């Protein structure tokens, strides 16, 4: 409790409050606008973390992430266009509610639901993260390796329609992480005499290219249709008694489900919305209303995606392993300050963790207070046409990546990655596994080497490590399930384009 109190004292400084506010607002706008997703925006925030310190940076970046989850729902409900992949499901019933004149009520319920889910998610994070962090203290390299293998198996399967493509993207990411001087034996690998490659390929320009530039190219090529926005007045924001009653349990279910789905590798926020929607439809007494403006189909997925953001923080903070692209950017931000998240974070830098927790409570409240009156403004932002927004976003990306290391080479890497990413998206190769492969590459190689040396070259000795064996067992069970599931019918979760 003392830690949390200190966290509140630290986060109530002017700098941190402004960071929280800016992060949440920028995140909401990013969620509303096409072009920049939370990953790219968080990467663009990295120069700010250098100026204001790790806790402030972390607060700002998380604000962007959960702000984007909120903002995405606004356009889904008002114009039937998801600003963010995690709000695709919200379009189904959200826009139908809007057509029935219930847009204001839908937005208000989503705001309250997201607030409740976010708060419950933070409570979960506050409770589980230190516990898991302590448990992870006993992890050795075999356990880390087994955990990484399980993560890769799940990631390749949950990140798109084609697990093989997910697997290939992870492998390519692992390869990119190998380029440069190997810190263990100072041996340069795959540099081919290029000085620029000696220090390795930074993952940020690649992430910016794959998530930012490729999306910019995609929007530039696509034909733009002007959406029609439903007008929302403040007095229309009040939901009816019936709508409120029907929303309570879906919000709670979405919150709990989202938090645990957030622990999974891959696009957890997106997956949480699909799972939440299908569960609500399955248990509903009026499933025929789904698709025609059922309030449960709006509030539950939105609660789930907000809560999933908090769940996704757990692997990052307790193990130092990011399972989603935005948390990979956060890891990069912390590493820029020589802070390595993981089990030791709670003992070496408890101030960062608790300031971060406290700031998330505050940020969540800020979103609720600010967003409801500003719904009309966000609706208008959604109407800004690509010919105006794309040139500005392109320039921000160019300067943003240049400013991280003052490197023109990084800008070349970003553009090359953007062009490759554009085609990979067209061919349905999932992008996130590639980025996570790059970030987890060095840890994976360390774990492989240390495990082999620990076992004196005999990998079978892993049998004597129960935790590692259980994790490997889970990975194998999942692969077996994937092979036999076509014979029994399977649950398919697709990454929306």
């Amino acid at each position, binding site marked *: 409790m003392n830690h949390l109190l200190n966290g509140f004292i630290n986060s109530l400084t002017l700098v941190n409050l402004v960071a929280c506010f800016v992060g949440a607002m920028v995140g909401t706008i990013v969620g509303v606008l096409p072009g920049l997703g939370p990953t790219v925006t968080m990467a663009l925030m990295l*120069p700010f973390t250098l100026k204001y310190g790790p806790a402030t940076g972390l607060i700002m970046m998380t604000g962007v992430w959960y702000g984007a989850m909120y903002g995405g729902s606004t356009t889904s409900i008002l114009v039937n266009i998801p600003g963010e992949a995690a709000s695709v499901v919200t379009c189904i019933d959200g826009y139908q509610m809007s057509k029935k004149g219930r847009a204001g009520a839908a937005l208000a319920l989503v705001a309250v639901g997201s607030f409740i889910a976010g708060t419950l998610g933070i409570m979960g994070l506050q409770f589980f993260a230190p516990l898991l962090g302590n448990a992870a203290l006993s992890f050795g390299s075999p356990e880390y390796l087994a955990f990484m293998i399980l993560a890769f198996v799940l990631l390749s399967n949950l990140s798109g329609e084609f697990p093989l493509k997910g697997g290939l993207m992870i492998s390519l990411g692992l390869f990119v992480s190998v380029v440069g001087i190997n810190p263990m*034996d100072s041996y340069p690998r*795959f540099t081919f005499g290029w000085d620029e490659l000696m220090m390795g390929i930074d993952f940020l320009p690649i992430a910016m290219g794959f998530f930012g530039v490729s999306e910019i190219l995609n929007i530039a090529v696509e034909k733009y249709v002007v959406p029609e926005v439903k007008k929302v007045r403040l007095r229309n924001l009040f939901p009816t008694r019936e709508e409120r009653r029907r929303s309570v349990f879906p919000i709670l279910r979405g919150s709990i489900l989202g938090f645990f789905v957030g622990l999974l590798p891959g696009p957890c926020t997106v997956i949480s919305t699909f799972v939440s929607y299908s569960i609500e439809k399955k248990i509903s007494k009026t499933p025929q209303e789904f698709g025609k403006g059922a309030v449960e189909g709006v509030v539950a997925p939105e609660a789930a995606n907000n809560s999933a953001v908090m769940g996704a923080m757990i692997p990052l903070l307790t193990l130092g392993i990011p399972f989603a692209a935005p948390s990979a950017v956060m890891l990069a931000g912390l590493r820029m300050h020589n802070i390595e998240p993981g089990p030791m974070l709670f003992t070496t830098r408890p101030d960062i963790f608790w300031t971060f927790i406290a700031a998330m409570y505050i940020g969540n409240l800020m979103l609720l207070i600010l967003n409801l009156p500003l719904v009309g403004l966000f609706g208008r932002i959604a109407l800004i046409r690509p010919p105006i927004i794309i040139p500005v976003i392109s*320039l921000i990306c160019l300067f943003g990546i240049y400013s991280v290391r003052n490197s023109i080479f990084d800008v070349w890497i970003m553009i090359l990655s953007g062009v490759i990413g554009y085609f990979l998206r067209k061919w349905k190769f999932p992008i996130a596994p590639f980025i996570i492969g790059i970030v987890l590459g060095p840890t994976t190689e360390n774990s492989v080497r240390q495990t*082999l040396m620990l076992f004196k070259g005999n990998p079978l000795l892993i049998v004597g490590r129960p935790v590692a064996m259980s994790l490997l067992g889970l990975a194998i069970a999942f692969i077996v399930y994937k092979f036999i599931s076509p014979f029994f019918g399977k649950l398919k979760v697709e990454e929306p384009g």
Partner: protein
Amino acid sequence: MGKPTRWSLEAAFDSIITGLGIVIIITSLSYGLGTFRRPGPGLYPFFVGLSIVIFSMVILISELRPQTRPALFNRGDVKTLLFMIVAFCLWILMIPLLGYVIVTLLVTYGFCKIMRLEGLWKPLSISAGTALFIYLLFDYWLYIDLPKGILG
């Protein structure tokens, strides 16, 4: 809808990735694999290369089935795509010479035109606004040392 074909741009990409995997394997061998007891610098990339070859070959084989493929984009799309890439590249090539202010003005204007923003004043005001925003955010606030070029 065109005729079913075996070959596609995606299959060509898969072949290149398979080739890359083979290069990684061969290069890793030259670094030395060592033994499981004492892993060499090439051991880990060797297995990464191997997994790339396996995954990409399986994808390539499945991709080579004759099938009708929708066109990725039409001629107009290609033109827009190429112009966008050229504008990005021009930013990189011109910034050391002309400095960030002039390049921002020019490239933003170029992007507006590629995105078919009509007229003169709208693109010009967006360019000027973007240049001012970049100056305030990166140069004035964050003290990033941006190339000044001929204005420096």
